[in-house]
């Protein structure tokens, strides 16, 4: 690879190797080399013109272009360089004939070579590339491509030859002449430019120097650098030329470029110092041979002599931050720069204001670090972010004289004097941090140790929140306080606090429980002027917290009073998700408290769609109908709750199914004969149906199978079997032990099962009994007599059970007033016939176009006729026009029979 082997290899490998070389020498100095070429060609014009006019004319043209290009190159105006290059190619085409005669002119090849070098150099300078304007970078890339192509197609050999040994190709005078004149002419060119530029910069140029890549006005800076260096380069040129005067070998170039690079580096670091120690440096140049990869060292912030004061630091800060968000900005470096700047400010004791300001900027830069909003921060970045936040927070708390806020304008900032005003919103940073925290949790696997590690930061996050809260309570506006309160609430509401649950009434209320905190925070939010969204979220969190701690009535009342059910559909999706979570938690709470119907009602919406996972934002379900677009999926993924906030879905389903069972089984037993069977829970029916479809039903394994088995035994009133299916080791491990105080819940379930089984039993088998002893029932269901009495009384009152209680004998006497199955079937049939007849008549109406039976009396007359047989059959006597609802028929019928019965019993 090294250039010493080049001579032996063929042309192709040569190009390769040359490219390699160029890559290695990261920053060959552009200015001196270019100036040289430019110089000699320029000078050559004068001498040549007289001798050979035809050739000269062409070459003159070309050299002119080359000269222009040189100028443009120096200010890195790529668009113009490209134009020049294209013009040069055209000129070369024109001069084809001359070239054929004369051979390729040396200066042209050199120009190409230089341009290539230059392009490569610029290409390497990534920071510069990123900072330039779009137009410029476009021109640059096209220039680079065109140049490469051009060289490869036409002058590959020449360029390589030239590179290898520029002297052998052409021993024209041209090459020799420019060398000595180099410095002079360079100076000539330089000075005029230099003069106007320097005064243009009011600030010490040194400051700007380490930011050569920031935008268009950088051109000036670049020039500046170059001009500064020009002094050195002049000298170095002289040095070089001393040992190979006029002979521009490859070594010469390479060495030069190396030296240029290192010079530039050094110069950047310590421009002033360098000037003083030029001689030493020259020695250095010799050593840094062969284009060893140079690591870009970060330039110093300030010049040695420069006075570091608030303005200077601010200026610097402004410079750094102005690069923010630009395409080519290295975000990592930005953070580093800011950190360094802060250190400098600190060491120079520039005061709190600057410190705070810089902290704001650093944290902001850290948040900026990740360009992709979906991926989370790296751990180390996150940790540093947390620590910076802590520090800043501590500063703010310790120094109440520092005022921060978004409302403070940039111009109103006061960074030096006593009431300090700094622009920046700490609350926003905290919110951003919270967001990042969620994102980090989302991104790691919930079952890994990584998740646990990250979750440990929750404490720190809460700590920061707490401190911020205290800070803002003093300094913040109401809105800010509301926001931080809500953040606090959101970190609090889902955490179970055992001290909050009352175990007994006589126990004194403990202080400082999360309940009280929640209460305080939420009440503030309710009463203060806060946006609706914050308030809604606070309410939901409050309800959730109540529900989580078994405070059913508070939770329910709050839910009902807030009227959230009505308008939750209008709120944003995260709030709706929170609503779902709250509703589910409310349902679970109701279940624990034994309010089965409430539990069912709360859970039915979530469970009925079979999309509980999605509705609670605990995972994505494969969407069968319409595939999500990737964007949609990303959005949905971002909404997911971190794992530690999840609600156990199996628990949820089990609670739902058990409450559905407790409601549905007696209901089904009571309404077996109804024409249209209404369902309380479709999902429950679905589960039952699924199990019925199975050919072989083994002993229950899953939670669902247990519930199904329990339901089946409940249907027959076998409460013991039912209880054993619901409460056993398997179910305990799967479900019930997840509750706080699982024994209480289990006891509650047992009692409920006993009661509902009793009801089911009465519904199903009442037609077999004439009388039933309460004692027997109490024994059968292991319930108290009073409970049995209560249940039966209630059933009688609700007209669910046609019976009466005989107090002296403690028996239930069945009235046998329910229509038998055959009778109810007949009733159903009559209904069906009615509709059939109606439909038939409608056909007739359509057919005839006139409506013979339209008036009402006709209809009334006719109807008894159609279904009279059935009505007479079931009702014994015809009365009124029958209603089509069999329920009402039943009721009439029952009432009449009741009367009969009571008459009979009186007689008896």
């Amino acid at each position, binding site marked *: 690879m090294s250039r010493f082997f080049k001579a032996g290899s063929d042309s192709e490998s040569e190009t390769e190797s040359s490219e390699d070389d160029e890559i290695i020498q990261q920053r060959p100095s552009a200015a001196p080399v270019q100036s040289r070429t430019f110089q000699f060609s320029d000078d050559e014009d004068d001498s040549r013109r007289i001798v050979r006019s035809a050739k000269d004319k062409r070459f003159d043209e070309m050299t002119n272009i080359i000269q222009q290009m040189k100028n443009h190159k120096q200010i890195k105006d790529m668009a113009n360089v490209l134009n020049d290059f294209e013009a040069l190619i055209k000129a070369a085409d024109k001069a084809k004939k001359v070239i054929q005669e004369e051979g390729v002119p040396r200066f042209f090849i050199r120009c190409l070579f230089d341009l290539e070098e230059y392009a490569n150099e610029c290409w390497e300078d990534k920071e510069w590339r990123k900072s330039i304007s779009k137009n410029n970078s476009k021109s640059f890339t096209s220039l680079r491509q065109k140049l490469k192509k051009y060289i490869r197609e036409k002058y590959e050999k020449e360029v390589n030859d030239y590179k290898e040994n520029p002297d052998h190709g052409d021993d024209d005078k041209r090459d020799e002449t420019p060398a000595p004149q180099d410095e002079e002419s360079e100076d000539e060119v330089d000075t005029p430019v230099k003069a106007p530029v320097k005064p243009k910069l009011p600030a010490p140029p040194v400051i700007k120097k380490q930011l050569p890549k920031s935008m268009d006005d950088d051109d000036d800076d670049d020039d500046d650098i170059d001009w500064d260096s020009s002094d050195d380069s002049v000298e170095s040129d002289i040095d070089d030329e001393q040992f190979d005067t006029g002979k521009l070998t490859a070594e010469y170039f390479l060495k030069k470029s190396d030296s240029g690079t290192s010079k530039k580096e050094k110069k950047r670091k310590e421009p002033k110092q360098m000037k003083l120690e030029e001689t030493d440096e020259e020695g250095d140049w010799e050593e840094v041979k062969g284009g060893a990869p140079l690591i870009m060292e970060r330039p110093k912030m300030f010049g040695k002599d420069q006075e570091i004061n608030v303005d200077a630091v601010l200026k610097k800060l402004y410079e750094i931050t102005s690069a923010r968000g630009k395409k080519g900005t290295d975000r990592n470096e930005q953070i580093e720069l800011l950190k360094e700047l802060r250190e400098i400010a600190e060491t120079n004791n520039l005061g709190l204001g600057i410190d705070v300001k810089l902290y704001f900027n650093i944290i902001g830069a850290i948040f900026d670090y990740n360009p992709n909003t979906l991926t989370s921060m790296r751990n180390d970045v996150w940790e540093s972010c947390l620590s910076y936040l802590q520090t800043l927070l501590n500063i703010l708390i310790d120094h109440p004289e520092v005022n921060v806020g978004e409302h403070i304008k940039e111009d109103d900032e006061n960074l030096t004097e006593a009431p300090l005003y700094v622009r920046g919103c700490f609350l926003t940073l905290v919110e951003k941090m919270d967001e990042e925290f969620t994102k980090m949790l989302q991104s790691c696997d919930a079952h890994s140790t990584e998740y646990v590690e990250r979750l440990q930061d929750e404490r720190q996050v809460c700590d920061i929140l707490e401190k911020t809260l205290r800070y803002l309570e003093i300094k913040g506006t109401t809105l800010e306080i509301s926001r931080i309160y809500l953040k606090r609430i959101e970190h609090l509401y889902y955490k179970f606090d055992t001290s909050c649950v009352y175990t007994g009434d006589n126990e004194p209320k403990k202080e400082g429980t999360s309940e009280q905190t929640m209460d305080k925070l939420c009440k503030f939010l309710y009463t203060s002027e806060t946006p609706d969204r914050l308030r809604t979220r606070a309410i939901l969190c409050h309800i959730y917290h109540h529900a989580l701690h078994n405070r059913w009535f508070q939770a329910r009342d709050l839910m009902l009073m807030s009227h959230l059910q009505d308008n939750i559909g209008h709120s944003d999706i995260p709030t709706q998700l929170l609503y779902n979570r709250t509703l589910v938690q409310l349902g679970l709470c109701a279940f624990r408290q034994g309010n089965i119907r409430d539990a069912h009602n709360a859970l039915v919406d979530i469970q009925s769609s079979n999309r509980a996972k999605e509705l609670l934002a605990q995972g994505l379900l494969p969407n069968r109908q319409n595939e999500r677009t990737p964007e949609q999926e990303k959005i949905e993924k971002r909404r997911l709750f971190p794992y530690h906030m999840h609600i156990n879905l199996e628990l949820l389903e089990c609670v739902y199914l058990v409450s559905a069972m407790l409601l549905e089984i007696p209901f089904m037993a009571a309404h077996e004969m109804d024409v249209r069977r209404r369902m309380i829970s479709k999902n429950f029916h679905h589960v039952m149906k699924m199990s019925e479809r199975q050919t072989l039903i083994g002993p229950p394994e899953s939670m669902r199978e247990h519930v199904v088995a329990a339901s089946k035994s409940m249907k027959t009133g076998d409460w013991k079997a039912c209880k054993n299916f619901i409460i056993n080791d398997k179910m305990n491990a799967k479900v019930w032990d997840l509750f706080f105080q699982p024994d209480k819940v289990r006891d509650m379930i047992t009692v409920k099962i006993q009661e509902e089984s009793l009801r089911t039993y009465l519904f199903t088998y009442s037609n077999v009994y004439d009388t039933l002893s309460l004692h027997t029932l109490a024994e059968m269901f292991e319930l108290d007599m009073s409970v049995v009495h209560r249940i039966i009384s209630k059933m009688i009152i609700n007209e669910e059970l046609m019976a009466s209680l005989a107090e002296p004998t403690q028996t239930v006497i069945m009235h046998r007033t329910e229509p038998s199955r*055959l009778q109810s*079937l007949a009733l159903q*049939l009559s209904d069906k016939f009615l*509709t*059939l007849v109606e*439909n038939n008549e409608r*056909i007739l109406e*359509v*057919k005839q176009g006139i409506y013979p039976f339209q008036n009402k009396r006709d209809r009334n007359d006719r109807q008894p006729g159609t279904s009279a047989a059935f009505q007479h059959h079931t009702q014994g006597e015809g009365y009124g026009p029958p209603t089509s609802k069999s329920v009402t028929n039943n009721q009439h019928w029952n009432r009449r029979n009741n009367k009969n019965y009571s008459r009979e019993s009186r007689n008896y």
Partner: protein
Amino acid sequence: MATRKQRAPVQYVQLDGLVVLKLIKHCQEEGAGGTDLVQGVLLGLVVDNRLEITNCFPFPRHSEDQEDFNEVQYQMEMMRNLRHVNIDHLHVGWYQSTYFGTFINRPLIDSQYNYQDSIEESVVLIYDPLKTTQGFLSVKAYRLTPAMMKFHSENDFTTENITKHGMTFDKMFEEIPVVTKNSHLVNSLLCNLEEKDKEADKFNFLDLATSSMLQKNLRQLMECVDATTMDINKYLNCQRQIMRQQQAKQQYLQKRQQDNAMRAQRGEPPLPEEDLNKLFKPLQSPPRLDCLLYSGQIDNYCQQISSFSTQSLGKLFMAESLQNDGQSN
């Protein structure tokens, strides 16, 4: 065949005891207590005005893994074998078991049509195993009426065609009386057997439990009524659509006429005639055969229920008087 066709149609079916027993046996063994349908082939001969059915054999129940089973070939083979042992081998119809009298449906009509189309005298025997278990042997022979044959052959079940043929639900089938005939030897055997019979077995037709039977019948009836209602609804919708289309057509024609009148006043040529059928595609009215069949089925159920209740009432009265007798004694 030609001579047979000219003969007077079959007046009654004479069923051999053997056929009845085989039928019951087949149903018992394969019909899973009457819920599954079983089918088989009837063999016999037409003599004068009666159809003598002297033998039968079941269609084998082929499971799904024997898909290549060839039914026709099996029947031919079977008949050939029977012929070898000198048994009647003429195909005279088929039999089918039924569950609570549910048999009037499309497949039955279609296959009976095919039978009658190729073998004119063929009948279908409907056997009700549930009734038989209650002590009433229920074997009924049905044929499609000639009107139905003609109607079916046109394969056009629209309302117009139904009216054209004057088809109603009770004109689809004709029931042919069935007579069971045993040889004298069998009769004497039966006499012998009767003496050995226990008393209890003789009177199982006196079973008083009626509700389950009635319930089931009612349920079936309800299903049928539901189906009919649906069908009627469909028809109704179709009617309405047709009405709407008619109105649209009328409006269109009126407008057309007005336009033409205007044009005539202005001396312009009238608008070209357009195909109205293209503008208003005639709507397909739903086939009414299903409705007919449902009606037939409902009719059948009703007859069944009424006959059952009559018998039951009789039994109940008998039981009542017997009980009163017992009490007074």
